[in-house]
Structures are given as C-alpha cells and as structure tokens.
C-alpha cells in the first residue's frame, strides 16, 4: 500500500462519487459479505473499493462506477480468500455474525414463533445461495441480489454477456430447486 498526496477531483466528479457512496456502499458490503462470509471484512472491502475509486476518479467515467466498484470488490475478496487459503465457501461464519446478521428478522413478523420462522426461512435461503456452484453463484449475487445489469455483471466477471445470462439461468434453476419447500405456488 502506498501513501500519496491528496488530489482534489473536480466538483462534478466529487458529486458523482458521493452519490455512488450513498447508492452502492450497502450493496457492495452485502456482496462482499456473501463472498467472504464475514461482515467485518466485507465492510473493509467496501471501503477499500471506494478508496480505490477515489484514487482513480480521473480514469473511471461516472457511468462505470458501479461495475468498477464491484470488480474491485471481487478482486479484493478473491485475494482475501486466497490468502486465507479458503475455498470459496460463502457464509461460513454468517451464523456467528450477530452484529448485523443477514438472517435478520422479517420486520413484519412480531410474534416469537413468527420471528423464529422468519429467521429459519432466511437461513434456509442463505444456505441455498451457498449451495449454488461458485461460478453460477457470482452471476446470481451480482444480477439477482445486487440488481446489476447483465452488461455490468459481465464487466465485473470479465466474461461475455451471454455467459452471464446462462450462468444466471443455471443459478436460478438451482436456487429454485433448493428453496422449493419454501415456495408456495
């Protein structure tokens, strides 16, 4: 990591950066948390990604902020996973992350039995996402969970748009079969 002098971007770019910070920070953290299975590390990844964006503001057009941030976050996550010598196992420690759990309660569920049910359902969904093969899961996390377009997801994953749509389709089918018991059609 290097230390450099602070350069102020122009006001228009700064506004775009602040908007990106407001709009994408949560999503970026959620994405990183699912990649790493660790919400504290995920917040660091999100912050590192924004720091990198700030340092490269003059090179990245504001329309490309989102895919750029996700790509950087993905690189950081994969680097962490590699360093930890983890396999890409998502949500490993998720159940222990009680500070801000993914499996938070359904706000509409108030009764204890409803809360328990909601928590159980969310855990089952997280577990289902975890069981999607990694290659397909990445497309699922980006497109389905974070709402990126196929084009942006392709830029993040470094693959053609067609590949993204195929991977997403397979991920959805797998996810649908895994959560079928929760689905009331």
């Amino acid at each position, binding site marked *: 990591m290097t230390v450099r002098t602070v350069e102020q971007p122009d006001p228009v770019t700064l506004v775009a950066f602040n908007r990106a910070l407001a709009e994408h920070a*949560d999503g970026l953290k959620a994405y990183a948390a699912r990649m790493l299975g660790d919400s504290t590390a995920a*917040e660091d990844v999100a*912050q590192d990604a924004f720091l*990198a964006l700030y340092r490269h503001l003059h*090179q990245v057009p504001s329309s490309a902020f989102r895919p750029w941030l996700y790509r950087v976050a993905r690189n*950081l996550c994969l680097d962490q996973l590699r360093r930890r010598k983890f396999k890409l196992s998502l949500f490993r420690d998720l159940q222990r992350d009680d500070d801000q759990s993914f*499996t938070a309660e359904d706000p509409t569920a108030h009764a204890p039995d409803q809360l328990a049910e909601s928590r159980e359902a969310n855990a089952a969904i997280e577990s289902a996402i975890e069981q999607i093969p990694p290659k397909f899961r990445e497309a699922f996390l980006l497109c389905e*969970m974070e709402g990126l377009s196929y084009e942006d997801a392709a830029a993040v994953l470094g693959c053609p748009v067609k590949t993204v749509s195929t991977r997403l389709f397979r991920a959805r089918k797998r*996810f649908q079969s895994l959560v079928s018991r929760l689905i009331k*059609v």
Partner: protein
Amino acid sequence: MNCRTAHYELSLNLDGRLPSGRHAMLMEHVDGCGPCATLWKELQAAQSLALRMPRQRVSNGFRDQLWQRIQSGEGTPEAVFREPVPLVSKVRYVLAGAAAAAAVLLALDALQPAPEKSRSATEGVLQPRLVARGDATPGNTQPTASYASLAPLTPDLLAREAALQFRNNYVQASSQLAALEGRQAGSTAQGAEPIVRSVCDHAVQMHDLGSVLLRLREDEHVTFSNPQVDAELRMMVQLLDEERLSRGDMDTVRTVVAPALRRVHRIAALPEDLRVRGIWTPAERQQVLMRISIDRPQVIGRLFYVMPGQPFPGKDVPVVDPQLQGRIFVFQDDCGTNLVAPRSTVANPATLLRLGMQPAPEAATGTADRASTSQPPR
C-alpha cells in the same frame, strides 16, 4: 418453441430482457405447457424470496472513516488490481512456456553448423525445410523454406506487434511534441509544419492500433495486467478520434494530441502489460485475423511487411537472410496466401526487398531500429 429454450428464456423474461414478440411466444408456450407454467411460477416465487432477504448496511462510521483514509493520502490497496488467474490459464501459461523453451532450444540447435550428413535427418521436420533451388548453381545455392513449414500468423503475434508499434508511435509523438513546444517557447515556429504532420500521423496510428487492441481485449483474446494501462488506452483511443485528427494542423496538436498524451502515465508499459491467450484453433485464429483485416485493413500493413499472394509457385520461399528465419509467417486472406514479417523483428528491411515484400515508408511506420532503441519517456 421447445421447453429447453423456454426455460432459458423464462430467466431472461424475469429480467425483462425479451423483445415483445419473443415474450408473446414464450407466454403462449407457457400457457399451453404445464411443466413450463409451473417452472415460471416457481422462478418468480424464488426471485421474490431472494429479493425479500434483509439488506446489509454499512456501519455509521463508514463514510467518516473513508474520508479520513482519503485525506490521509492512503493509496490504493495492491490487491485491487490483482486479477485472479484461472487454473486453465495457468496450465496454458505453463504449456506455452514449455513450447517456447522447446522452440528456443530447437532454434539454437538449428543455428549450430551441422555436418552435411546430419542435416538431411532433421530437415523438413522441425524447422523450415532448407533445399537448393533448381536454378541455383553449385556454390550459389539459396536456402528456401516450404510454406508448410512456416508458422501461421496468430492474433497473439499481431497483438504484441500492435502494442510495440503503439509504444513506438507514442514515444515518437511525445518527443516530437516536446520539440514542438521547445520551438514555440523559443519563438522559432518556422519549419514546424513537418513535425506537426508527423505528430498527427503518429496519433492516427495510435488510434488505429489502440482500437485493434481494445477490440481484441473486448473479445477476451488479450488482457492487460494493469487496469490503468487498459483505462489509458481506452482514453487515448477515444480522444485521438480520427475525425478530430482530420485537420492535422497545429490546432489539432494543441487541442487534441497534446492533452491526450499528457493524461497518460503508464501507457508506455503497454507491451509489457499485454497478456495474450497463447493457444488458438486454426478456425479461431483465422476468424479473428480476417475480422481485423476487414475492419481495419490498413493495420496489417502497418504492423507487418507483407508479400501478398503466393509468389513462389514452386511452394518454396527463399530465405535470403538467415536472420529472417522464424520471422516470416503465413497469413491467409481473401487474396490467398501472404507472407508477413513483423516490422519490429526485421533489423534490415532491405533484405525483404529480395523476397518481394514492400517495406513501407519510414515516416509511417515503426521499424526494428526504433522498436529496439526507443524507450518510454521518463
């Protein structure tokens, strides 16, 4: 429409990515097909389950901490640009490395003066076949190489050459721009016209070569190890737009070329940062090269000395200069078989004249001398 197609399109339909006609066809199929109708409902339900999941939020201090880090001047973490290398690519690199090592060993072996009797044992197998041409007199034999033994031109080779030539043009344009600015500062703008033209020529070539590299990158045939190089290349291609350069005068240099050159810092490392694919099937190779030669026909000529058509009906190519061995490649296009030699590898273009290749005018190209001596500006 069969169910298999319908299943895939149902996923696209969830994201609203089907054209209206296709959407209508899909819905018509779903209405008449029980299993597809069930899957459609289940996919919708599964999607709403996924979207119902609670969102993680960054902590309250996230923004403040980020601004503190920014203000402290902390740089970008190195891992930001550390792209994962897939296992398949690693295997490819190993294979390509082994192949390159074998090629070097064979080339070294071929350069050793071999006894006459041992030559026949190796000729035509692993190196260009060396034979005496029919019209040669004893003592005046001219070595030749069969077409079959010449390596085909590959997109990798083209990309590498494009990166080298791009850098040559960048170096030339930068130094000429500096000279131009020196003249202006000293009020000796007289005679600047040829330099202005040359700077614009280099800019046009950077645009062409950069466009080819970006296209190869978009199609995932090449990558750049440093994203900054990638970004700078994109920016240069965008700024050095053909239309904006069309006037080719001092104003163009001042308002288009100079700002573009001043905004880049890493572009000189383009050849080193280029990562090529390494392995091609003949069909892929041909498809990519043909597309480049059709989209940007001028580029092939800028990168290679070209001998068009199959000039030697006897199917053997005279290799007049031993140094050209291994530097001539075969390229098939609509006109037939061409021989090409990368400009950066040919030290003495005059030898190519005897092959019938046309060295292009110096001003428009980067030759081996420039390629080997020019260094990125510091």
